[in-house]
């Protein structure tokens, strides 16, 4: 191997990424060539200094406050009643899931029943419906799934917001209508669940409707992406 060729192999040599048969000739050359030896030394210094850089740097104090505020807004927007705009097609900073909000109606009495039922339900065995083996039968498990759903919807919402311009207006209108239909169904089921929190079938139905909504959003996003 000539000097010219070896010069280009020095980076890999220094980081140990050369193959076995290449290492020896390169090492031999370096021992005999002052230019390459200097370059190797120099590379080693750069890499050593890079490794010595602080791995962690304190961020500004206000960063967490901003993040927390956005997270709380997310949670709040999802819990708020928002019948009008099912899809908001505008991308603002930290675009919220407000537009794709889940409608939750809980009277204070309803909330109390909900909370009590949750702790009581934690110990009951999970009834398995073979056709829906993965659905949550207990309210505690459902709460986790619900939060997952809400966050997935937020992500998908962001994606759809970005893709809005790629879809025909009639399709957008039809999609909005479908999402509204699903949201209304979710609202009805959620209201019923508030009154009857131990109802496993209701939980499974609600779970299924969440999945349908996410599936529709995901499919739309995927179909549009290729456009």
């Amino acid at each position, binding site marked *: 191997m000539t000097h010219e060729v070896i010069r280009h192999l020095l980076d890999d040599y220094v980081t140990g990424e050369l193959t076995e048969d290449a290492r020896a000739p390169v090492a031999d050359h370096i021992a005999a060539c002052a230019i390459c030896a200097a370059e190797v030394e120099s590379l080693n210094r750069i890499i050593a200094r890079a490794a010595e850089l602080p791995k962690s740097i304190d961020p500004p104090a206000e960063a967490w406050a901003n993040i927390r505020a956005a997270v709380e807004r997310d949670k709040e927007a999802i819990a708020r009643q928002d019948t009008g705009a099912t899809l908001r097609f505008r991308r603002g900073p930290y675009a919220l899931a407000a537009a794709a909000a889940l409608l939750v109606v809980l009277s204070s009495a309803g909330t109390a029943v909900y909370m009590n039922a949750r702790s009581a339900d934690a110990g009951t065995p999970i009834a398995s*419906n*073979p*056709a*829906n083996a993965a659905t949550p039968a207990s309210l505690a498990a459902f709460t986790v799934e619900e939060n997952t759903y809400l966050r997935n919807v937020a992500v998908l919402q962001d994606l759809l917001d970005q893709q809005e311009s790629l*879809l*025909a207006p*009639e*399709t957008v209108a*039809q*999609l909005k*209508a*479908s999402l509204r*239909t*699903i949201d209304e*169904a979710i609202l*009805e*089921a959620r209201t*019923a669940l508030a*009154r*009857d929190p131990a*109802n496993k*079938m*209701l939980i*499974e*139905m609600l779970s*299924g*409707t969440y999945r*349908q909504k996410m*599936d*529709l959003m995901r*499919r*739309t996003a995927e*179909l*549009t992406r*290729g*456009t």
Partner: protein
Amino acid sequence: MAPDVVGRIQRAGTRAALSRALTGGLAAILLLASPLVAQKKVERRQPLGMEAALRIHNMVGSVIVHGWNKDTLLVRGTLGAGDSFNMGGGYTGAKMFVESANERDPKPTRLELWVPARVRLWIKTATASIEVTDVAGGLDLYVVSGTIDVTGSPRELNAEAIDGDIHITGSPPWVRAKSASGAITFQGASQDAALSTVSGPIRVDGGNGVFERTKIETVTGNVTFTGRLDRSGAFDFDSHGGTIDIAIPEKMGANFSVVTIAGSITNKLSKKTPTPGRFGRGAELVSEESGGGAKVSVRTFKGPVTLRRTK
């Protein structure tokens, strides 16, 4: 096979043979873009293996596919002014797409294809309708707002639309069909079928075919299902507000488990009556009809449920 279909295949075959004689050798790779001409016609032909993969992207217009018994791909298309048709690939797989002169206002393209019947076909369009006949291989069909029409029994059929209807005439052993606001109609039976809509109606008529596993779900669409149920089969019907109407043949047995939170249940299969649900609304029915058999589970939030015999 329907006589008109046979006729179509025979005519296509003759044309294809003649064409091949005229064009001579078969190229391995074709990548041709058509020049700028208003409403032009294109025709392409290339060898394609019997079990090859074929991908088609067409934004607007229609895509019509016929399955035939040759290892040849034949495409005839009519394009809008300025659009170009691109096709490439080889014996094991080919790909084609239409490139619009104006992305914002694409002109409709009509593509008609003849493909080896066992091909694995993947078609994606925006508003183009897709029509596939006599393809026995696998089908993956995606439209945003076109119609999907499948005739025949592909071994696998996956059809997805957002705002389009899906019509299936035949008995694919494995079917997945989803639409949001479009309707799904299935005339045939399947061993493993899952059909889903948001507001579109779902109509299934199995004729003499037997279903084994079926999952039908909708939010507000109305569902009618007529079919024979395999004794060891499992059937799930889920609806929020849409009606569910299930009809099974005389003397066919099944085990029903029906629950509705706020709707009604009408059982015309036997004298077994539903019990009222909680809070004074809704109903429940658990019933073994005609000695039992397939497990049928029906759940609705408020959609009314009817169980009956086929007329």
